[in-house]
């Protein structure tokens, strides 16, 4: 439905977004994940038509809507927007906010407003003013307002950041359900990996104005393209490695990897849940337990390796560890990265 080709935006000498291509299908939920200042909001605004691209184009159903010469103004794109600070019109009541963009006759509008207030389960707030309702309620109203003109696409810029943790989770689920119910495609911009992972069908990971990786949340988690991606999405342990005598020397011992991978490997990455810990006598151990964090379903263990590096291990609490336990630690799954931070093994892209 939406396609961006080689999209770029620069402000003076600052390149906010460079050479981004992406496509979005009907009904698809895409999230754009990245640290603040990576250009993700600019990308969203380029799609919305609020910014004019410096290069590249945006297509809607194959028709160019943004380019260097042609810009379909935002009001004619039928894209709904949801903002971090909700951006409800403070001078309008809740129902007038929702009805602001609705089309049709007075009764049609009325009907749409009621239907949407029902959908976000806030019909009792219809006549209140925005400042009288809570943040979570405001964001639901903002969603209802964005849905009122039956948009083709919903664009959300950090919509949950202004809400507290508990509310955020609840609202994320609710809004996802509402949007799925309306069957509208959605682009979510966020810096929160949990949000991106739980909300979307597909993720676009951005860094410094460029796309680092694109894929389903599971793909990106399991096969991060770069060291940076591995630590931005999920927890990661990074250990230095060295290729010696046809085997890979690691702080966990020697590993057998193919020559073409091992030769260039400089760093290995292991997810905390991919370690295996065994209790062994001190002389056979390669690490000592230094901290234990028990939090119900998960146990996080900090292990100091003989090499001097320390790693975080997480696992089920069936076997409880104590400080100063001697352990043998092995990695059941790992990825190798070269000196420029790119992944060498695992599923090729």
């Amino acid at each position, binding site marked *: 439905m939406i396609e961006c080709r080689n999209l770029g935006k620069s402000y003076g000498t600052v390149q906010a977004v460079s050479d981004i291509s992406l496509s979005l299908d009907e009904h698809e939920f895409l999230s754009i994940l990245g640290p603040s200042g990576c250009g993700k909001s600019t990308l969203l605004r380029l799609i*919305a*038509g*609020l910014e*004019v691209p410096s290069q590249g184009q945006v297509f809607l159903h194959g028709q160019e809507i943004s380019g260097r*010469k*042609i*810009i*379909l*103004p*935002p*009001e*004619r*794109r*039928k*894209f*709904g*927007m949801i*903002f971090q*600070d909700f*951006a409800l*019109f*403070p*001078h309008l009541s809740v129902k007038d906010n929702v009805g*602001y*963009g609705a*089309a049709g006759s007075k009764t049609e509008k009325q009907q749409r407003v009621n239907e949407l207030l029902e959908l976000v389960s806030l019909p009792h707030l219809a006549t209140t003013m925005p400042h009288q309702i809570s943040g979570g309620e405001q964001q639901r109203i*903002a969603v209802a*307002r*964005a849905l*009122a*003109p039956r*948009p083709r696409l919903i*664009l959300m810029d950090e919509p949950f950041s202004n809400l507290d943790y508990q509310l955020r989770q609840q609202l994320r689920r609710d809004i996802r359900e509402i949007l799925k119910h309306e069957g509208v495609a959605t682009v979510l911009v966020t810096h929160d990996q949990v949000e991106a992972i739980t909300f979307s069908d597909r993720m676009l990971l951005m860094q410094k104005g460029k796309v680092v990786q694109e894929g389903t949340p599971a793909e990106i988690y399991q096969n991060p393209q770069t060291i940076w991606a591995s630590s931005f999405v999920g927890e990661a342990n990074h250990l230095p490695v060295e290729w010696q005598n046809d085997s890979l020397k690691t702080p966990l011992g020697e590993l057998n990897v193919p020559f073409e991978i091992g030769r260039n490997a400089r760093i290995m990455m292991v997810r905390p849940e991919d370690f295996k810990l065994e209790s062994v006598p001190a002389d056979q151990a390669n690490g000592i337990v230094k901290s234990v964090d028990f939090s119900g379903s998960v146990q996080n263990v900090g292990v100091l390796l003989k090499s001097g590096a320390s790693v975080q291990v997480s696992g089920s609490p069936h076997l409880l560890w104590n400080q100063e336990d001697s352990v043998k630690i092995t990695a059941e799954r790992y990825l190798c990265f070269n000196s420029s931070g790119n992944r060498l093994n695992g599923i090729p892209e």
Partner: protein
Amino acid sequence: MISSLKISGSWNLFTLTMVILFALPVISLMVTAGSAEENVWEHLLSTVMPGYLGNTFWLMLGVGSGTLLLGVSSGWLISMTEFPGRRVMEWALLLPLAFPGYIIAMVYVELLEYSGPVQSQLRLWFGWNSFQDYWFPPIASVGGAVTVLSLVLYPYVYLLARTAFLQQSAALLEVGRMLGKSLKNSFINVALPLARPAIAIGVSLALMETLADFGTMQLFAVQTFTTGIYNTWFGTYNAPAAAQLSLSLLMFFCFFIFLERYSRRKQRSHTKDSIMNVQPRYPLSGIRAITALVFCLLPVTFGFALPAGLLIQWALESWRNVMLDRFFSDAGNSLVLAGVTAFIGVVLGILLAYGTRLSKRRRVHLAARIVSLGYAIPGPVVALGVLLPFAWFDRTIDAWFKESYGISTGYILSGTVFILIFAYLVRFLALAFGAAESGFGRITPQMEEASRSLGKTNLQTLKQVHVPLMRGSMLAAGLLVFVDVMKELPATLMLQPFNFSTLATRAYGYATEELLKEASLWCLTIVAVGLFPVLFLNRQLRETSPRHYKEI
């Protein structure tokens, strides 16, 4: 498919058109000044220029020190100390702003001239017979003008100094005192240097008003650039000479605008990190409290209470002689002119501010700045700059019609209310623009993004979102323009149609015929209207972050 580049293009076009329209007066002055047949400049230099420069110099020096003394010390007393009556004085010190310079000048001329009540009473008491028997300070002099203008202009300095003192972190002053400085010493060593940029802004605003003042100078027979322009125009109709005088005056303004802008930048850096904590006021008691109160009462008395009281008394005395139909027709004219200008000004101000908000081009922002400089151009200069191109236009049309059809069209634009409103807009649009800009500043850009993503155009968004949200600032902007138009004298005098007068021009006319008592009703009305923005300012004073009057 409509391109939004085109839409913002039409906004840019609008902004640039406005700039050209508003730069017209200055351009026409330059063209006219350059078109002098003989060397007017040399003539001006050898005749009137030395007098103008001398008077201007003494006026600047006098009003500068006067406003500095009154404004800084009252600002300090109000913000840093506590004495009985301080709360009342806090707003009462603003009251003189309601008096235009020329009205207070009229009152003091009437009061202090040879035949006025003060001198007559003195002669009666001491048995003097004529002016040869005693010495009395001449009111119609540079000294008189300095005194009168200092009395009505010090509130600029007071307002800004007070705000600056309040914004200073109390900790800084406490550090000063802990290091062994007395209150007085920490004022001189810490507070005053920190407040210097704000005070400089206040003084430069007061000095710009002084340079632009026409009525006071004319009534006190002090020859300066503004009266020079007026008299050159009406006395000799020597347009190039008047234009050259106007341009020389504008050069002074460039200097003060630079000073003001520069100080504003510095002020920002001085108050950026300051925390708005409540400072403990230094309590004054006994003789010191009385001195403080009397010190604050002095400018309020002579700048407001006394002249207002006299005007009321004279209005009551002359009640039977007042031609009420004349008053109502003048008041009606003033009301319509001020109302129409305020309305157009607010609409244009909003459109202009919205245009700059939508545009990211530096050109457009610069253009908006140029429009807002009109506020710094004195009335006679604006009047001349507007009159010249309009008169040229009328003459050209008239000549063409005479040649082609044998009909004379006469003056179509000049000599009508239209030109007057245009001149007002050139001068006062900056007020409306500034207020609209600060109104927009309080609305997040996400409001219009939300609105546009909901299918509304820029103009619909302006109407449905911004305008309802900005009602307050628009009202304030309209009020400021309204009051300034009511008070405006020189441009109105130069441009008003034949047989047409406003409250201000009639009052001035009475005063020049020494019929001040008859004018008191007119003057009182102007002062009463002028009180509105003072009340408005007073309300803003109470807000946590005070805004500056006439922040352009």
